[in-house]
């Protein structure tokens, strides 16, 4: 059932791939604007680059997540799947995994932009990739749940961030810290503890949100 849900999600994402490009441009523009705020201070730019990367990714993710239920609501397709019958957990995890993949790709794509704009290169590419994968998992799981909750609202683009941002603060903080250590160096070996914290929050988000999704979509 999960395979079927995931296959459907990836197909829908592929059909709306132009939207992915738009979200990337939005994220890159956000990174550019952050650099304007700091000015030509290369040291400060490099110091704050991890925070800017995750803020750019966070803002972009609200667009991606809010749109992820558009196709489901257009003709009440989600209700159609639930009545088949389908397992709501499979539907949730299918969409959350697809959103996770999309956000991870977006995060990886924004890294070169960050490197160019903030001179924030790193040799710990695998470590950075791991942090992006774990960090976007922390955005995707609650983001998909809240996107489902707000999908039928007219002001969903406004309500979703209001609900999502407070919830993901711990995961965001851990992602920023771990990324910062990957870019600026980690002589005391503190990155691991932040990554473990991030992983712990991911586990909490992915297990709790999967359970709650049924309550959100079933009347």
């Amino acid at each position, binding site marked *: *059932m999960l395979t079927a849900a995931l296959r*459907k999600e990836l197909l829908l994402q592929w059909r709306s791939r132009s939207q992915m490009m738009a979200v990337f441009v939005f994220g890159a523009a956000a990174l550019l604007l952050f650099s304007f705020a700091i000015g030509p201070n290369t040291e400060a730019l490099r110091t704050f680059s991890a925070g800017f990367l995750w803020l750019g990714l966070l803002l972009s993710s609200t667009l991606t997540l809010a749109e992820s239920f558009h*196709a489901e609501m257009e*003709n009440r*397709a989600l209700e*159609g799947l*639930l009545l*088949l019958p389908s397992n709501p957990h499979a539907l949730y995890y299918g969409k959350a995994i697809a959103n996770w993949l999309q956000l991870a790709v977006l995060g990886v794509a924004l890294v070169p932009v960050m490197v160019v704009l903030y001179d924030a290169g790193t040799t710990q590419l695998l470590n950075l990739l791991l942090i992006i994968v774990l960090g976007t998992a922390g955005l995707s799981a609650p983001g998909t749940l809240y996107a489902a909750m707000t999908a039928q609202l007219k002001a969903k683009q406004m309500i979703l961030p209001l609900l999502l941002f407070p919830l993901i603060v711990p995961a965001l903080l851990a992602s920023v810290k771990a990324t910062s250590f990957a870019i600026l160096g980690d002589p005391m070996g503190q990155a691991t503890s932040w990554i473990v914290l991030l992983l712990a929050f991911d586990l909490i988000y992915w297990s709790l949100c999967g359970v709650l999704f049924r309550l959100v979509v079933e*009347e």
Partner: protein
Amino acid sequence: MSDVAVEVEQLARRYGRRWALVDVTFRVPTATVMMVTGRNGAGKSTLFRVLATAIRPDRGRATVGGFDVVHEREDVRKQTALLAHQNYLYESLSARENLDVVADHLRIGRDGIAGVLEQVGLAARANDVISTFSAGMRKRLSFARVLLQEPKIVLLDEPYGALDPPGFDLVDEVIRALKARGATILMTTHQIERSAQLADLTLMLEDGRVVGPAAGRPLSGPLDRGRAARETAAEPAAPQESVC
């Protein structure tokens, strides 16, 4: 399945402060066709959505295939298919891909999809994205979706809506085929005369209440059918609906 496919007792459902269904009671024997008529807003679609487990009733009890629509939703869903006003289709997918999604979720394999598309007259447009489809073609694809499920109990909410005359014939054929297969069919319709030829039972709703014929009573003959049609055709009807 028992002799009674659908049993509804004192069913009530409200939206906010407005009651859409009030104390609705009826029975539908297995392998029969029941026509549900009534004016717009009479509660027909709400009744079908309750029976399909899309929404819960506020009061009363309903069983579909012997299973309770509140407490045994999964079991109800396994044997029920709903053709709703919303077509449940993904706009950015093709007709075949939409049915692939259904087949994958039902875990029934994709072998039957070509045949079902042929049956509803969409074989030639199978690979077209449905955002290019007309309302009638979407309705046909929704029918294909229902047929693919091979349900024991079929809930057709306005099956003739948006269809052209050949589409009407298609609906009739499908209903006859489903009935021949032993399925129980409930359909809401404003095509009274046409549906009366197919229906074994009729039920009229008004303001959420059953107003006649007697709940679950079979149509006894042409006179009753005509009366049902007259009583229900009070609202403006499409040209082909003008009866009596």
